[in-house]
């Protein structure tokens, strides 16, 4: 039962990864690969231990914990990139408002060009 639940959750992560591909290919790809590894470990628990030993971690459970930390970091990174995108939109909006409200000095100099030697 737990295997089905975990597989469902990791499948959702994979779908999420597809969507995030548009925001950042690096983050999307990393999330997809990690979710795919997770599904493998759920159905082949021995592979987690074997893989952990190859990496020098020791136990599969420890490996999963470390991977969880990496995934958390990637999600924070992804959130940060989304916030930057929102900032870009907000910046453009503020810029247009600002330019529409430009104030000229009280004494306008006219359209005299500057002399260049």
């Amino acid at each position, binding site marked *: 039962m737990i295997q089905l639940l975990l597989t469902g959750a990791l499948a959702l992560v994979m779908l999420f990864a597809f969507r995030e591909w548009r925001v950042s290919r690096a*983050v999307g790809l990393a999330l997809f690969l990690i979710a795919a590894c997770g599904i493998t470990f759920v159905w082949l628990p021995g592979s987690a231990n074997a893989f952990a030993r190859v990496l020098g971690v020791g136990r599969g459970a420890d490996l999963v914990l470390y991977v969880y930390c990496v995934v958390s970091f990637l999600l924070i990174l992804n959130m940060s990139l989304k916030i930057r995108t929102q900032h870009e939109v907000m910046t453009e909006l503020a*810029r247009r408002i600002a330019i529409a409200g*430009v104030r000229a000095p009280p004494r306008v100099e006219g359209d*005299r*060009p500057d002399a*260049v*030697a």
Partner: protein
Amino acid sequence: MTTRTIFLVIPAYNEGDAIGDVVRTVARRFTRVVVVDDGSRDATASVALAAGAHVIAHPVNLGQGAALQTGLDYCVGQAADYIVTFDADGQHDPDDVDGMIATLEREGVQVALGSRFLAGASTNATRARRLLLKAAALFTRATTGLKVTDAHNGLRVLRLEAARRIRLRQNRMAHASEILEQIARMELTYVECPVTIRYTDYSRAKGQSGWDAIHILIDLALQRLKS
């Protein structure tokens, strides 16, 4: 003697104490001074306006890079021949601008970049700041291939075509590196010109610290991840 329409863009945030003098000084030579007030909490906008600048006021604080891009957008809309970027804290010498424009015309390039480290330049930067700035220039050389000696100098002259093409997305301090990245990527022609940078207690207090270099590197890395 030829004539050109020159706009000076000065991004400013809480510069009410200095902006009046800076605008009056540059306005003696250049008639079109644009101060982009980046959501200041003090009287920066009214002081700049009274000193003779056109004032564009961001409704919220966005950062120096965002203010610079706003100024570029405005000047491009005004069909400027040359757009000069100039810092608000009084560290630049307006007399350098004429030399930069003359060099830009003579060399037939699209961008003139100020450098405080070329022969003929002058600066009173501390040894620590010099080291930091030279490290930044080396980083820029390594990442963009541009052979610049000063990567974070706010004094630049852009021809209209160059200003039209450059699009700053780094709202904060990383815009200086971003401009150079875009110059390299779009293969805009450029020349470095020796300029004077005079730090005062005021400009030191307002300027960047060593920690800002870390922020700049993180901002540049995040922008690369996005693209």
